[in-house]
């Protein structure tokens, strides 16, 4: 309705120049991250399928400051939409508000920005589902009782923190009374630090039965430590990780299974969402519906104060399917 017109009239240049092709931008957290590259690929696929032009950006360091500068550059280029995987949920608010004022449709994907800074968030998976699934997974692996620990990314990582909250909630269920979460350690997504932290967990808690690492670097580092120390079968490992990084450890049985969504799909869905926002098919309100290419129909739902679009349940990788995925992403 109204919103749609306002958007169009505020960005006439966007539709006018560059051979009439609208520009859709995506900003990932940092460059050189295969997960992010895949997400950007998916976004690009969607945008190009629709006949628009895609701009892929990522700063060299995963900082909010660098992302703010990129948002400014995109405002100057008068893009039609910005999809952003945020390095900080709040720190981009002023910049993104400025973008929205300039008529640019803003959505977040992967890691959300706060509700005021976006029209809609494309959520790869329900945090609650992830948190609960991971606990259920590790409890199954350790046979229902014993000590477990979490090896996370940085202590500030919002995604991870949300998942950890849900894990703790799940553990409150009386059926887990024999399962004890002994520690949440932070490897800062650095290889060396994650390895030290994993080693420290094993030494400080000799009876540790399972580790949940909801981050790629963390789970791979833990996999490596368990492999080197020959703890296969003694300490179980699960979490979220890239299939390519984890193939080795899933095939060897160090990590019986783990979860992840398909980052290409996250990007692809975001691309369609962005286009739907720009074309006025949706405004980001709860109940809006649109068709996201090969992913089929999607609906905007409530997410705290804001709204979101859910990709679906995370995918389970285990020895039976890892071989076909390890070369994909």
């Amino acid at each position, binding site marked *: 309705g109204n919103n749609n017109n306002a958007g169009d009239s505020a960005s006439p240049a966007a539709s006018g120049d560059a051979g009439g092709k609208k520009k859709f931008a995506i900003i990932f957290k*940092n*460059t*050189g*991250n*295969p997960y*992010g*590259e895949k997400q950007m690929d998916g976004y690009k696929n969607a945008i190009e399928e629709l006949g628009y032009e895609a701009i892929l950006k990522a700063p*060299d360091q995963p900082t909010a400051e660098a992302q703010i500068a990129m948002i400014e550059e995109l405002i100057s280029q008068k893009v039609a939409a910005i999809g952003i995987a945020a390095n900080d949920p709040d720190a981009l608010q002023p910049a993104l508000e400025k973008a929205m004022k300039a008529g640019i449709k803003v959505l977040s994907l992967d890691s959300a920005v706060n509700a005021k800074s976006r029209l809609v968030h494309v959520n790869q998976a329900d945090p609650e589902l992830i948190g609960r699934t991971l606990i259920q997974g590790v409890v199954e692996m350790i046979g229902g009782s014993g000590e477990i620990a979490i090896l996370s990314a940085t*202590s500030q990582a919002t995604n991870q923190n949300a998942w950890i909250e849900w894990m703790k909630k799940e553990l409150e269920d009386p059926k887990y009374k024999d399962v004890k979460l002994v*520690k949440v*350690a*932070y490897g800062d997504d650095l*290889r*060396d*630090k994650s*390895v*030290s*932290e994993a*080693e*420290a*967990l094993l*030494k*400080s808690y*000799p009876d540790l039965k399972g580790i949940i690492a909801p981050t790629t*670097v963390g789970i*791979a*580092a833990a*996999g*490596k430590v368990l492999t*080197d120390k020959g703890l296969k079968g003694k300490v179980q490992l699960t979490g979220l990780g*890239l299939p*390519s*990084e984890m*193939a*080795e*450890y899933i*095939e060897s049985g160090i990590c019986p299974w783990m979860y992840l969504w398909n980052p290409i799909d996250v990007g692809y869905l975001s691309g369609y969402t962005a286009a739907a926002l720009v074309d006025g098919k949706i405004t980001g309100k709860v109940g809006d519906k649109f068709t996201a290419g090969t992913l089929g129909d999607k609906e905007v739902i409530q997410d705290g104060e804001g709204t979101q679009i859910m990709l679906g349940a995370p995918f389970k990788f285990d020895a039976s399917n890892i071989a076909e995925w*390890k070369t994909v992403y």
Partner: protein
Amino acid sequence: MKRQITESAGVPGAQINIGKPARSVSEMIGKFRELGLLGFILLLSVGVQLRNPSFLTWENISDIATNTAILSILAVGMMLVIITRGIDLSIGATLAVSGMISALLVSHYPGIHPLLAIASGIGIGLICGMVIGCLVAWVNILPIIATLGMMNVYRGLTFEASGGKWVSAHQMPTGFKAIATGTLFGVNNLILIAVAIYIVAYYFISHTRSGRRIYAVGSNPDSATISGIRSGRVLWLVYTIMGGLSGLAGVLWVSKFASAQGDTASGYELSVIAACVLGGVSIAGGVGKISGIVLGSVLLGILNNALPMIDVSPFWQMFIQGTIILIAVLINALVKRGIDRNHLMRRKI
């Protein structure tokens, strides 16, 4: 201004005048510095051991040594650089680029012999080091600026080389991963490599001409020129060695963690510099010992290992590390002052 009595730069005198009763004061200071550091390390270890009994187990000690090996290999090169009054901020990037390229190599040609992979990493590192060496030695760019600039360039090249991808464990042949996990006589290869490097470096800096010239250039560049030392070559050599060691460290890193990323070891240079400084290498040049940097690296290694083990809140870890570095450095300075003063008081006037 009165000249401070400086600590003797090298080892030479130390073993030779055994049997002579008169030991120079400076030698004692040198000893004291290392003893003090050692004492601090022991105290820290005992403290940690009381909190967590699994600290002083054979396994944990071996883990600390393994995790410190790469740091201390780099510290050897950094010490040489600092002795010549320089600094190298690019080592993290050099490490990343050589690690990445050798990882790409083994992933494309899995049949390659691990030693060849190591050689390729060292080769890349050497080239990176040579470029910096040229800039510092012959274009006369300040080391901090030259290495800051090249740090960006090498880091950018790492991303370019990998096309934004990582090289993961399953893409690496077992032989390659075994470089870092393999053992000889029950000791991890990394530790053995580090020890071998210490021994070679010790011999190099105290028993060869080129080694002593590094000290000469750092101690007084002007007289070095006049003594016929080609300072340019020495500087170039030092940065090239640093590059080669970073390259080696790159391969070891990738092999140890079984993953090569674009942002491998970013910021690692600060840890290496901290290890050197803790080990008594003077930024003013001309002073530094292998034993010192080994202890410095070990102290950092212990901190990295112990803080998680005694359940220090992750939010306190950074503060504690910084404070320990500052206190160690300040105490070092104060003790040295005290000894100088004592020495003066003993002079009869």
